[in-house]
Structures are given as C-alpha cells and as structure tokens.
C-alpha cells in the first residue's frame, strides 16, 4: 500500500508491501552481513520511502526501497543493487530544479550501509534474512550519502511496523526520523 504523507514541510511517500516505481537493473551488487545487536521482528516484506527535505538553501531528496527475504544466514545480509545512471524518474517529490534518476549511484552505497549500522546500534536488526535494496532513485542535486543513510534505517523501521498501521502513525514516524 502506498501512503502520500500530508505534511507541510518534509514530504514523503511510503510503500508497505508494495513496490515503488523505481526498480532498475543492477550493474553491480554490494553485499554485507551484519550481526544484529538485537534481533527485531518484522511484519512487512517490502518497505520503501521517498523523501523531500526542504532545508532553505538546499533541498534533500532520495527514494530507497528494500525487500526482506528469509535466509539461513546468521545475521542480516544486506544486498545493495547499484546502477550509476538509470532512466529519468518523474515524481512530484523531486524538487524543482533537480532531476530525479532511477538507480543508486556507487557513492551512496556507503550511506545505505551506514544507515543499517546506525539502526543496529539504536534498535537492532532482523536476523536470518536478506534485505535487498532493489528500488532507488536519486536527485542530481538533492541526494547525498547522509540522506541515503537516513532512509536505509527508516526502511528497516518501516518493515517492523505492525500490519494495519495507521497513516497518522506512519506520518509521525517519518516526520520524527533523523535524516
């Protein structure tokens, strides 16, 4: 299900158990296995977030989505698909003056992995599973390592939300998330 969150400042689209329209063919894949400090339970198989952050002199933007697949791995395997430059991505959240492109550039992989590490430190991670980041879009001006770090942790958190979570709860989570 997709949620377009009605906020005045930070704007976001959230997908739960539904793929965002930003799939791409990976030109390379980066894998890491992370040992959860605390194993957390998940309720959803897919979670994705697209976010626009108006900060005054700059506007942050990114979209990231992941699919959780059961695995016999001891820990959480993080699989990040990379594609340096995909097709143009049109969305009302892509800031004016920016250009959205489907795919995840190499340089943002470290952001995705850093966000997972931060999530592990603060809340823990799912275990015995593979988290495959298969959907992404970036802004030619608005994306950064930091934004992708914020979003990857949020994707994990969204996967843990109970079934039937309300839009209000999702909005509160997205607005309060540190990006």
């Amino acid at each position, binding site marked *: 299900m997709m949620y377009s969150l009605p906020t*005045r*400042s*930070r704007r976001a689209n959230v997908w739960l158990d539904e793929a965002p329209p930003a799939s*791409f063919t990976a030109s390379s894949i980066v894998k890491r296995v992370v040992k959860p400090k605390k194993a957390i339970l998940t309720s959803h198989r897919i979670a994705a977030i697209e976010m626009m*952050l*108006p*900060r*005054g*002199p*700059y*506007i*942050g933007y990114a979209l990231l989505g992941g699919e959780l697949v059961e695995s016999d791995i001891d820990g959480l395997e993080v699989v990040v698909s990379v594609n340096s430059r*995909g*097709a*143009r991505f*049109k969305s009302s959240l892509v*800031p*004016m*003056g920016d*250009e959205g492109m*489907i795919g995840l550039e190499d*340089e943002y992989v470290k*952001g995705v992995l850093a966000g997972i590490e931060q999530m592990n430190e603060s809340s823990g991670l799912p275990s015995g599973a593979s988290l495959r980041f298969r959907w992404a879009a970036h*802004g*030619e*001006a*608005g*994306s*950064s*390592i*930091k934004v992708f*770090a914020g979003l990857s942790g949020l994707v994990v958190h969204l996967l843990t939300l109970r079934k039937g979570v309300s839009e209000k709860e999702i909005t509160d989570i997205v607005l309060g998330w540190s990006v």
Partner: protein
Amino acid sequence: MSGTTPGTGGSHYNPDEPRDWHGRWTTGGSSWRDTPLRDPGAAGRARTLLGHARVGAWQKGVLSDVAWPTPAEAARFSRLLTAWNAASGLDDAPFAEWFTRGLDIGPATRRRLRQAAAGAAQARTIAQMIEASIPLTAAIKDIGGDRWPEMLKRLEDQAETVKPEQLPARVRTTSGKAPTEQTGLAAGDPPAHDAYQSLRDYFSEGLDSLSRIPDDLTELGRLLINDPMAFLAAIAPSLAGLGVSLPPKVGNVYFQEQKAARVTQDGLDIIERHLARPELDDGLGDPLNQAMIARLKQQFGKKLTGADLNFYLHEILESMMMDAGWDYAEAHEWALILAGVSRFSLFHPDVLRQFPTSLNPRYYTYWEVK
C-alpha cells in the same frame, strides 16, 4: 524596362534601399528593417525571433520542415527569453542547470542562446530582431549538428525502461524503426520537427514549473511573474536596509562583482526567522545552516564575498519572495536565478569540509573540496 526603377533589379539595384514590411521598395526614406515589431509584446517578440531563426536554420539546411509556434508555445518561449535575459552574463552554472538540463550542450552554444535572448528582449525593430535571431540560428545548428543524435539516442534508451507517458513526445511518436548509425534517427521520422519539439520540451520544462502561480500572491509577488527585474528594483530599498546592494545593471543583467552585502542584525534576524518557517524541514536546526549562520555572525558588518555572500543574499531573497506569496520551491529557484548564482555555491568550502557527506557531491565539486 527602366534600369533605375526600384524593385526591378536594374543596374542601380541597391539592397539597402528602403523597403516596407513585405520587402517592397518605399519612397518614404525609411527601411523595412526599421519597421517596428508588429507585436512588441512578449509572445509576439518570441514568435518573431523563432520565425527568423527558423528561416535562417532552414536556409542553412539544418531544419527542413518547421512549423510556426502556436501562441502557447510562443508564450513559453517568451518566458524563456525573460529568464535567459535575467541569467545573461552571470555565472554560467544556473543557466546551464535550468535551460540546458539534459541537453549537455557546450558553453559556446549557451553563449549564443544568451545572446539571442538578450538581443530579442531589447529589439524594437525587425532589423534588431533579425540580428538577435542570428545566434539562435547558430545555436540550433550547433544542437542539430552535434548533439541531437546523442540526445535522441539517450531518449530512445530511456524508452526501454520508462513508461510511455513519462517520455517527451519525440519518443512516443517515433516510427519504431531502428535508428540509423549516422543520425540516430529512425527512417521515416520527421527529424527536424521532432528535434525542435524536443528542444521545446526540454527548455519549457523548467519554465513551466517556474510559471506555476500561487493564488494568494501579493502585488509584489505578481511583479515577479511579469518582470523579475522590476521585482528586484521594488525590493531594492528593503535590501539596502539589510546591507545588500544589487545595483542597476547593464541591459537587464547583473554582474557578480556588482553584488555586495554587509551582515546586519536585521538581515540575520530575517534569515533565522525564515529558516524556522514551518514550511521548511527544521532549516534553522540544520547543522549546515547553523555553520553558515555562525560564519555570518563572525563577519558582522564586514563585506561578504563568495559563498557567504551567496548564502546571505539567497536566504534574504527567498524569504522576501515567500513573504510575497510564493511557495518555498519557487522562491528557492527564483532566488538562485535572480541572484545569478549556482545552487551549489551557497555553502562555504570550510563548511563543506566540516560536513563531508551531508550534501550532493556536486556541492563539493563546485568549490573543489576533496
């Protein structure tokens, strides 16, 4: 047949003889070239410029089948001219970002486009408009000769992964046949028309978004739609009170070196209130913004330069435009265009070094921060 009769091509033929609008010789002494534009309004001006440029391009064998623009297209082009003019002679980056995004054309072509825009904005006669159309014709030729195949190829590549409704008309209307290696165009495509359509699509995209007009604009805010320079003139006294000087310009052009600002308490207050607006995502608490504000406070009363000047001026302009009724996104873009600065120029290199992962890599590239 008399050899001295004007218009008969006799031995006294003089191409500079005065003619009327239709090219007929006149006896009144004035040349058709001095004829005022029939429609000096923005749309008429754009139509005339496009018409002359297209004729020129056709004569050069660049375009073989072109149509006159519709009034709506002319109006869009007219807005483009206004913005080009505003961007003329300034830092190349904002111009390139907005109006050549996706085209990847070179600086020479961008210069020609700007020359055409500046000339067209000031033209009062047919002769002046023809003169303005010359660099536009050259730019069309540049793009047509060198970049269209590359650009069209890119569009066709995108067609494999993007939904049809997301694509410009060029891709949707292609004949479906394989593009030739030489031109990148499929056999049976009407290349000139499609190329021009693509040009308009690319150019108009940014302008269309800029032309979204909020319902509750103030009178000052409306001024920005019709005459951005008049808007700047109207806010000049307020800017002066904040230590900012955007002095009058040459041919509607601001030059980077003419801009000046000294930090004042009122200016800082405006920036802090602006960044704390609920429309922004904790702009005041943002560490990058805090670092820039700290730099401004350290330079209180001093003349600002570089990123500090750009940041101070940008935030004040953005705030004034939002006060005038513009949404944040529009205010942000207009502030960049009117101040003639790149979006990547607003943060000082020392701040970028302090926050090496917080912004897009192009911010760091702009200031050559490793």
